[in-house]
């Protein structure tokens, strides 16, 4: 049938439309009704208003998920001329991004770091919108545009704290690195477009997996394209050669925005990366022969460098935000292992599900970590780790929560972080073919790095529990700090005891949302993984979506 769009597409897309309008309303509200209020009152009012909008959008998402796409678990849930995904992937991840956004909004209400609250919250909402579109986009044009919208909103939010020098500097550095990398990314896209003549991710995957296409062998232009696209994504998720912006941006940005950078933008960019690298360029992934290496080798190098550099540099950090920045770089390294597994595994959906599991847990915990930084910012104006001294004595519950968070970030069993790493590394070990050795090495390095990371996470715990305080004590944190902390720690603990529920959900998402082009499977399934995860049919029978009916 001819692709088109109907009213249902708009209904499915209504949460995003609602949010966009909500952002405009936020601006109008700030300039008209609240224009006479002081900064603090406006901050509180607009924050509550923003939370209301986000919550209603989440509700709308879930309603749609049950009403329209809840039962759709096929390849075909594309809307708007197949440029967007209207399926479970879209609804679930939209709800997730909005949850992150709600927590970030709570953190924004902690203290006054700018006087332009209307613009601040509007840009926050719009960046959430563009993240959702980025996750849902099935077309390179939509993907590039939403990626740019997201990053431009984030540049602006980063520099929004106009009373501090470092905020402006962070914004400019973020902007310069970001726009250069997006220019490289765009050139890579243009080369891919030249080789396939299509901008639809799925169509690119099908064309590249055609019979007459011998992978990447002898295709230097394709290699350059992959490299440039990898630069773009690597910047967005702060992988190592392109990470220089991250520590500065995280430290300079106000704590909520740093949390937003670490959680939302990383989540959206990684999902888009899985789509492009696994879906469109998936056929170029594996090393079919020593003469034709796929992008796996390169990504493995990046991943190894990222986790090692992140962890070892984090060891020396004293500023809490900077420490969290380096830890997020390290986590990006772990996640790249998952991306590689998606690229070359025979069980791509499961690998993607494991990666998404890790992403969710990581996002929640890191937001909670930045909530700590926001607390310090409000009461002491500094964010050094030593400011946490003796926190556990005065606020035992906070101590427990932080303990859970840190254990989850290290990956210690009772918490969800452990299962995230476990699933992802098992999927990574599940691959076969030429790249098996690489993956085993990567997993080993990942485990070693987890041990290394334990040192600086434990340093925070040591400060909280063992050290005596030597500074003026923190005041009680209001609900706007305790909520993100509680949500992060609680969910980390809950999914630590109920990992299967989240994993099942993520598998539904990845199976119905991601579509990978067929690729000659190089290896047989491994029996060992079956004991942990029930075996799924390989993605070979993933039908091309073009002739499937619309929901």
């Amino acid at each position, binding site marked *: 049938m001819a692709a088109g769009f109907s009213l249902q597409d708009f209904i499915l897309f209504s949460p995003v439309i609602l949010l966009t309008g909500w952002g405009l309303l936020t601006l109008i509200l700030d300039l008209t009704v609240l224009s006479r209020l002081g900064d603090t009152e406006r901050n509180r009012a607009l924050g509550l208003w923003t939370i209301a909008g986000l919550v209603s959008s989440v509700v709308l998402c879930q309603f749609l998920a049950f009403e329209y796409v809840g039962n759709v678990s096929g390849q075909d849930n594309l809307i708007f*001329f197949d440029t967007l995904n209207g399926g479970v992937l879209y609804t679930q991840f939209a709800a997730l991004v909005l949850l992150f956004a709600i927590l970030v909004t709570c953190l924004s209400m902690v203290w006054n770091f700018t*006087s332009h609250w209307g613009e601040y919250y509007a840009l926050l909402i719009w960046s959430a919108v563009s993240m959702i579109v980025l996750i849902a986009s099935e077309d390179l044009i939509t993907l590039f*545009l939403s990626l740019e919208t997201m990053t431009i909103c984030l540049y*602006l939010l980063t520099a929004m704290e106009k009373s501090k020098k470092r905020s402006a500097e962070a914004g400019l550095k973020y902007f310069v690195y970001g726009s250069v990398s997006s220019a490289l990314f765009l050139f890579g896209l243009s080369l891919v477009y030249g080789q396939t003549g299509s901008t639809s991710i799925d169509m690119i995957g099908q064309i590249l997996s055609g019979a007459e296409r011998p992978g990447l062998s002898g295709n230097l232009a394709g290699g350059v394209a992959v490299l440039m696209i990898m630069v773009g994504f690597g910047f967005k998720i702060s992988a190592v050669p392109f990470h220089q912006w991250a520590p500065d941006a995280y430290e300079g940005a106000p704590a909520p925005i740093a949390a937003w950078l670490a959680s939302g933008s990383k989540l959206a960019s990684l999902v888009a990366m899985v789509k492009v690298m696994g879906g469109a360029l998936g056929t170029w992934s594996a090393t079919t022969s020593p003469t034709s290496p796929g992008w796996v080798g390169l990504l493995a190098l990046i991943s190894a460098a990222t986790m090692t550099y992140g962890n070892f540099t984090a060891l020396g950090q004293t500023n809490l935000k900077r420490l969290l920045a380096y830890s997020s770089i390290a986590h990006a390294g772990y996640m790249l292992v998952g991306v590689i597994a998606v690229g070359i595994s025979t069980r791509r959906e499961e690998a993607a599900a494991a990666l998404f599991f890790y992403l969710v847990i990581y996002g929640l915990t890191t937001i909670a970590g930045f909530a700590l930084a926001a607390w310090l910012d409000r009461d002491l104006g500094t964010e050094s780790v030593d400011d946490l001294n003796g926190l556990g004595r005065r606020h035992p519950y906070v101590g427990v929560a932080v303990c859970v968070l840190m254990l989850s970030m290290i990956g210690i069993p009772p918490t969800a972080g452990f299962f995230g790493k476990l699933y992802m590394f098992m999927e990574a070990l599940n691959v076969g073919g030429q790249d098996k050795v690489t993956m085993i090495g990567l997993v080993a390095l990942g485990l070693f790095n987890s041990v290394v990371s334990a040192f600086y996470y434990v340093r925070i715990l040591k400060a909280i529990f063992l050290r005596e305080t030597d500074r003026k004590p923190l005041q009680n944190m209001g609900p706007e700090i305790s909520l993100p902390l509680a949500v992060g720690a609680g969910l980390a603990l809950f999914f630590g005891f109920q990992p299967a529920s989240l994993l099942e959900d993520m598998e539904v998402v990845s199976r119905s949302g991601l579509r990978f082009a067929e690729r000659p499977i190089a290896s047989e399934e491994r029996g060992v993984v079956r004991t942990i995860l029930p075996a799924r049919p390989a993605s070979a029978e993933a039908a091309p979506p073009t002739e499937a009916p619309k929901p």
Partner: protein
Amino acid sequence: MIQALFIALSAFGLLMALGTVFARNLVNAALFLVAFFFVIACQFVLLEAEFMAAIQVLIYIGAVTVILMFGIMLTRNIQGDETTTVSKRWRLLGLGAFGTVCTVLVLGINAYQPWTDLAVRPEFPVTKDSTTPRGQAILSMTPTVGREMMTRYVVAFELAGLLLTAALVGAVVLAQHDSTDIVNAKAEKPGTEPAVTGS
């Protein structure tokens, strides 16, 4: 004939790009950039995309360059002379990157068979009876762009609107002086004051 035209045009454009990169004076660099944009517009005409050429002139030469000039005027000494010098290391790095990327790209283009085969621009004949969508698009680009924007790329179109709105809002907020600004010692008077007038 047209090949010679293309070669001359491209050589001019590359020279202008080099000038943009190397000019000591930023305003001169911006002027070179204008020339480069114009060459790109000519390339679009050679590619039978006159609509894109018009957009190129309108947006880049008309708007982007003007914004850049404003930026130069507001941040540099008024004549826009470059004051800082590039360290030898960065200069070597830049030249190295230029050499590698250019070589690799050219080699890649040459190595890719389907591109080198396209020596002749394909024709999309448009007759009364039979026509191809692309032939239609080439003949009347503007209506096609309009319809595509309203149908296939409607989300992208709306997203572009959102992008421009966000950029406008944010840029205004950033460029505006306000009370929470840390005022530099040598700072000029706040921009929200009215301009000098003869009254």
